[in-house]
């Protein structure tokens, strides 16, 4: 097969290669389109990440509360529900099934829906990680916080969570990278992100290899950027005098 990188300069309607690879006056080229698709991918991923972090932290924390078995059970149910059903199936149920039961959901744009679905799906995994992070801390830390007179909220806020988050930064990094990759399911609810672009553009231009190569490249760039950001955070959050977190041993 021969290469034809000119495809990205083609106009999306006339299929003609223009003088510039960026369209003018309302016309768009495949390059324009791909960049905007990348923008959607990044938006979906980052917003889902926010949802996942907020919900995941909450659920993960609730699951470690002592003396509240019902809250713990609720948290477990959340994790099992979102962990054991594939993301694509979740999206489908939320997009097609739930709205026919609650018609109000129908007006929800696909974008919002996928942000929540992907966010909740990932929150189950983050909750699991945070829980093990908290449980990895010596029991004495919890006691120490209580003994200082902190309320439950306070000792989580000031004592347990700061260390637990530091401990789980490595798996959290993998999860943030995963969110970028998983964001491709957004095409199933009509968000014009990279995977949809790839499927559509390769069909229209018949230059599948070039299109997929470019899209793969953008995914790798995004995941790698997230990886570097997390490495930076890990660096900044490092506590002086501690060997890399998690090495506790006994």
């Amino acid at each position, binding site marked *: 097969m021969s290469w034809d990188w000119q495809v990205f300069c083609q106009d*999306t309607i006339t299929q003609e290669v223009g003088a510039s690879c960026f369209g003018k006056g309302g016309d768009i080229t495949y390059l324009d389109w791909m960049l905007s698709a990348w923008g959607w991918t990044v938006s979906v991923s980052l917003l889902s990440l926010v949802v996942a972090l907020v919900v995941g932290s909450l659920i993960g924390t609730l699951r470690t509360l002592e003396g509240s078995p019902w809250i713990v059970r609720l948290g477990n149910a959340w994790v099992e529900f979102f962990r054991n059903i594939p993301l694509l199936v979740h999206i489908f149920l939320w997009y097609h099934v739930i709205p026919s039961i609650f018609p109000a959901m129908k007006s929800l744009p696909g974008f919002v829906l996928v942000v929540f679905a992907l966010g909740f799906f990932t929150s189950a995994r983050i909750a699991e990680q945070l829980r093990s992070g908290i449980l990895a801390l010596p029991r004495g830390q919890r006691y120490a916080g209580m003994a200082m007179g902190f309320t439950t909220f306070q000792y989580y806020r000031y004592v347990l969570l700061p260390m637990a988050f530091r401990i789980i930064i490595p798996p959290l990094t993998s999860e943030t990278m995963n969110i970028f990759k998983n964001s491709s399911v957004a095409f199933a609810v009509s968000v014009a992100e990279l995977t949809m672009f790839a499927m559509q553009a390769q*069909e*229209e231009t018949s230059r599948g290899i070039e299109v997929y190569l470019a899209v793969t490249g953008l995914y790798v760039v995004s995941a790698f950027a997230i990886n570097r950001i997390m490495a930076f955070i890990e660096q900044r959050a490092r506590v002086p005098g501690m060997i890399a977190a998690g090495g506790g041993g006994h």
Partner: protein
Amino acid sequence: QANDTLAKIKSSGAVTLGVRESSGLGYTLGSGKYVGFHTEMGERILADIQKQLGLAKMEIKYQPVTSQNRIPLVVNGTVDIECGSTTNNTARQKDVAFAYTTYVEEVRIAVNAKSGITGIKDLNGKTIVTTTGTTSVQTLRKNKRAEGLTFKEIMGKDHADSFLMLETGRADAFIMDGSILAANISKSKNPQDYKVVGEVLSVEPIACMLRKDDPAFKKAVDDSIVRQIKDGSLAKLYDRWFMQPIPPNNVKVGLPLSEATKEAWANPNDKPMESYEVK
């Protein structure tokens, strides 16, 4: 020579047929059974080739393909001949060859019967669904520009998904190949609720796809197609898959043979989509 499919079939006694798992022209019944108008036509082409090669036994391997992988699969030799629902266009002709056109697809509009929409001009301000990874999106875009319409465009993951959006009222119209619209409507819970309306938005020749630069194989395939047209067996096949009840549900698709397809059969050719005019 590397590109001698006939020799390859003769020496290996096997051939790989690319088929679709769920489209208007070919689908699966599960457990490795593939059926449909184009699938069965492909089998007949291969039977003719077996006769031509004088093989006592020839095994047909079925390889399900998707719109993403069908071209690379043909190019890299995994699939010898693909008879699914692939549009013959100039861009693709750079990579692969096409047999004579055996079906001409018309892109049309399906709507809810009670919606009152009768054509493309009624779509102004409405929400329209098409399927990701199909050329209908392009058609839609062209029409949008030509007629100065504004409408909201959403895309289904696959045809069933798109149709579901029409069914659940998320979209007002589903723009897609006529055969797919007909198949989906016929399978739906209340087929009378939907209808295909308005003008033909574009026409696309659908043909079996072969490796490039293999004239002997292409000739064998084309010859078989011409034979099937001439002796009327292709028309009978069409009737069987579009006008009679078909598995798995035993309902009729009910899509009569179009003028465009009749014309293609009358003058067998492998012209790409670009040389067709929307009438």
